[in-house]
């Protein structure tokens, strides 16, 4: 007699439970994959925001990155959201909110990790730009489950070359009157002291264009041009001259020019100044002039250009 045995209900139920567990884990993997995809999407978006903002701030350059109004200031924070990126960014927003903020702070190359390994030859001031893009992950019920942040960092070093320019124009009668050359103490002689010239500053009405403040030592090549006119009713003598000189912080630098008034109404000079020491306070460039003789001499225009190269 053959004994035939089938499956009991218990065995079938056990099999069903096992299959259910497998199905549940597959569905969990599918749902997990969905959220992973969303998270990757959000991270990519945050990276885009951070990258755009970093590039935007790096493009400003050292001088326009304001850490604070005072040079000794430590940090300035700029902030915004996705609307600051581009119209496409705005139109593709989902229910995740992104915000960004940028810290700009003062630093120096000696503070950077690379300085300890390579040895920094010179301490160059720099601006640290640190960008954060923040967002919150939400679950299926739209509840915030996690706050996330992407951080990017870069350094804007102090530039090696700076150009400083300034000019002034004095065409009106009132300005002309104000910018008349002072008369020297008679005709020039080689034994003159400084007081014999009666120097007068021509750049003082436009001090904003001749002020500088460099946080590292510089070498200057300083060029200035003066266009002058004189009283045609009282023409100067052929040997009447105009004197000009350049000063930094009130100290004369380079040569004094001496130019005949009648034959040369355009005066220029180039002055090289080495080792302008670093400074955290404003320093001034000034041009002074004086003239011989009784003819009134007026300043029509001047310009000053400075090529400042880092002193190494």
């Amino acid at each position, binding site marked *: *007699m*053959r*004994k*035939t*045995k*089938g*499956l*009991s*209900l218990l065995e*079938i139920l056990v099999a*069903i439970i096992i*299959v*259910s567990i*497998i*199905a549940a884990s*597959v*569905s969990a*993997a*599918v749902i997990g*994959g*969905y959220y992973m*995809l*969303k998270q990757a*999407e959000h991270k*990519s*978006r945050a990276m*885009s*925001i951070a*990258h*755009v*903002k*970093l*590039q*935007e701030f*790096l*493009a*400003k*350059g050292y001088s*326009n990155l304001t850490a604070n109004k005072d040079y000794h200031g430590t940090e300035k924070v700029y902030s915004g959201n996705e609307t*600051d*990126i*581009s*119209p*496409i*960014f705005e139109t*593709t927003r*989902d229910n995740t909110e992104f915000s960004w903020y940028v810290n700009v702070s003062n630093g120096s190359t000696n503070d950077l990790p690379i300085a300890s390994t390579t040895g920094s030859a010179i301490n160059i001031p720099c601006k640290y730009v640190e960008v954060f893009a923040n967002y919150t992950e939400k679950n299926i019920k739209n509840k915030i489950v996690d706050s996330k942040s992407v951080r990017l960092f870069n350094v804007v070093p102090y530039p090696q070359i700076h150009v400083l320019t300034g000019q002034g124009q004095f065409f009106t009668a009132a300005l002309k009157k104000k910018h008349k050359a002072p008369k020297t103490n008679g005709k020039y002689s080689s034994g003159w002291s400084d007081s014999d010239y009666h120097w007068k500053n021509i750049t003082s009405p436009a001090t904003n264009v001749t002020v500088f403040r460099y946080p590292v030592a510089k070498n200057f090549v300083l060029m200035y041009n003066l266009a002058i006119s004189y009283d045609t009713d009282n023409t100067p003598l052929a040997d009447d001259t105009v004197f000009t000189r350049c000063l930094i912080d009130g100290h004369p630098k380079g040569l004094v020019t001496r130019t005949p008034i009648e034959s040369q109404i355009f005066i220029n000079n180039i002055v090289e100044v080495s080792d302008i020491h670093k400074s955290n306070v404003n320093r001034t460039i000034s041009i002074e002039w004086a003239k011989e003789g009784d003819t009134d001499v007026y300043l029509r225009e001047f310009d000053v250009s400075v090529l400042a190269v880092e002193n190494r």
Partner: protein
Amino acid sequence: MKIKGVTFLELLIAVAISGVIFIALFHLSVLAGKQINIYIERYNVYSQIGYALEDMSARCPPASKILTPFGSDVFNRHSLVFLGPENLRDIKPYRGTTKYKYAINTDTKALELTTNDDKTEVLVDGKYRPEITFTRKANTDANFLIVTIKALCSKAGQLGLPEDVVKAEGIKFWFIDVVRPD
């Protein structure tokens, strides 16, 4: 003879339950398959957008002149035409004369880079319906603009994911300002 097996009712219950489970498994496997397809599509879209942005961030900065006309300092443009160096490893400031154009081809819908009006390179395939915007914002530096590329990942909608894939990049021009074409 005693034969022990399942009753008809037990069999029916078992068939019903396993039927539900197999249907669920089938749907899950279809879903998983779709998810893989979406992963692949999104990867392709991201790669192509990333490649296009990388190309722009290498080619645009040494531009010597921007030929795309624009009237104000705040603008959005969908193409950029400029002159730049032929060889990106041999840059001479202001002297690049090779004409480059980033724009959507109206026929193929692809984002293309056209060089000197004849050589064309597809940066983002037309099937992804790419859109490109060059944005200049007020109060940003005159030599800076933002490029945003959006592409369509049509399969993502099947899973309730956003169909648009978007990436942006900031570009700083070295020698010229974008608000002053000349």
